[in-house]
């Protein structure tokens, strides 16, 4: 489904991505983690062409993201993306946030788009908030709307970039719950997150990045049992230790 092959990217002199490779099969959930600045966001943005890369190749359903002849808009409309800071459109109501791209990009009729939007709002538990503006919702609610907005385009895969890291602790769960449901429904997902609880529950594989490199790419059970590298080991111990006494 998603196939990342030896992708390298530079910002000027600075190399952000170094020969990164990874495969995500249909229906698979892959979690990407790693220290801040390691290139996770950059990699995931390369997947739907929000960032250009200089070397390598990314294929989505055999369509090459970097290729000239690929219609990027169309490709992006088929890969949903959820951002750390939600990025709902503040000037549009929740329902309009869900319909605008359906109408303008996919050319759906307004009624059709609205119907679809309402169904998705129900799924994320926000039917009653359809007529509100994003600013009137809590962070957790906004992020659930953002997920619904991406789903409204009937994506073949979903990308998440730290979807819970801007949320208050009590809201994290409500968003993760929606993501778990999605995963269980068989959606192909690539998720940048530090929520190891989520990873354990639904991930098929965990990718660990550091300094622009894919350092590990292993089934989750392997990864948690014994990370193959020191770097991953260190990282895991850091992010788990302060929560060690929890639960």
């Amino acid at each position, binding site marked *: 489904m998603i196939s990342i092959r030896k992708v390298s990217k530079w910002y000027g002199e600075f190399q952000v991505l170094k020969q990164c490779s990874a495969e995500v099969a249909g229906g698979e959930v892959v979690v990407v983690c790693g220290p801040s600045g390691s290139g996770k966001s950059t990699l995931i943005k390369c997947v739907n062409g*929000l960032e250009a890369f200089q070397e390598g190749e990314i294929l989505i359903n055999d369509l090459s993201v970097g290729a000239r002849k690929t219609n*990027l808009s*169309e490709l992006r409309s088929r890969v949903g993306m959820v951002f750390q*800071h939600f990025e709902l459109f503040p000037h549009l109501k929740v329902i309009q946030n869900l319909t605008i791209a359906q109408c*303008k990009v996919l050319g759906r009729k307004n009624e059709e788009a609205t119907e679809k939007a309402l169904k998705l709002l129900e799924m994320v538990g926000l039917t009653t908030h359809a007529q509100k503006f994003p600013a009137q919702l809590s962070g957790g609610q906004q992020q659930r709307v953002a997920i619904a907005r991406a789903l409204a385009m009937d994506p073949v895969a979903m990308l998440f970039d730290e979807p819970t890291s801007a949320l208050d602790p009590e809201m994290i769960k409500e968003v993760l719950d929606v993501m778990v449901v999605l995963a269980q429904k068989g959606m192909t997902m690539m998720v940048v997150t530090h929520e190891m609880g989520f990873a354990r529950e639904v991930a098929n594989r965990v990718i660990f990045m550091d300094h622009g490199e894919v350092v590990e790419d292993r089934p989750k059970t392997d990864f948690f049992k014994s990370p193959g590298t020191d770097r991953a080991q260190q990282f895991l111990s850091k992010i788990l230790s302060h929560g060690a006494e929890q639960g």
Partner: protein
Amino acid sequence: MYEFDWSSIPGALPFLWQGMQRTLEITAVAIVVGIVLGTVIALLRLSGNWALSNLATFYVNGFRSVPLVMVLLWFYLLVPQLISNLMGQPSMDIRLLSAFVAFALFEASYYAEIIRAGIQSVSRGQVSAGLALGMTKGQTMRLILLPQAFRRMIPLLLTQAIILFQDTSLVYVIGLAEFFGVAYNTGNRDGTLVEMLLFAGAVYFVISFSASMLVRALQAKLAS
């Protein structure tokens, strides 16, 4: 002690009113054309195309570095020639036309900066979100960026319009009888310059102040 003599005002009122209409005409034209042109220039500046963005920068800096009075004088001297070269003798008052053109072009350079800042104040994430949904660059700009940018800019755009309204007083240098020009000439003719200027100042104050109060109310409403 200065002896004030307000006797010039009553007789001049009809002309002052005509002048005010002119003033408002110029202000309105400059706002509308200025915002449209300013948006285009702002988009050019942000276009990422080296030549276009430099051209736009040059335009903005050029107009902003010269006093408005000089801009008005230049346009009053140049516009008639251009017009008559292009379409023969114009039927419209050439001074008014020059003022329209000069103010519109001049204000466009100020509006361009406001609009550019407004667009840049919308987070980059919004562009990404638009693109990620499959919208084209144009759609993202039109449906996502500009509506938000304009909403944020409204107070600044209106404040600039108030400044513009006051600046129109400078067209008296080209002899156009807008509000300030009428007041000034009446004062000059009757030897009541101080009184007429005070009167004009009061009128400008009342209008500008009321307008800026409205802007603030609007701002408060937008903020909530």
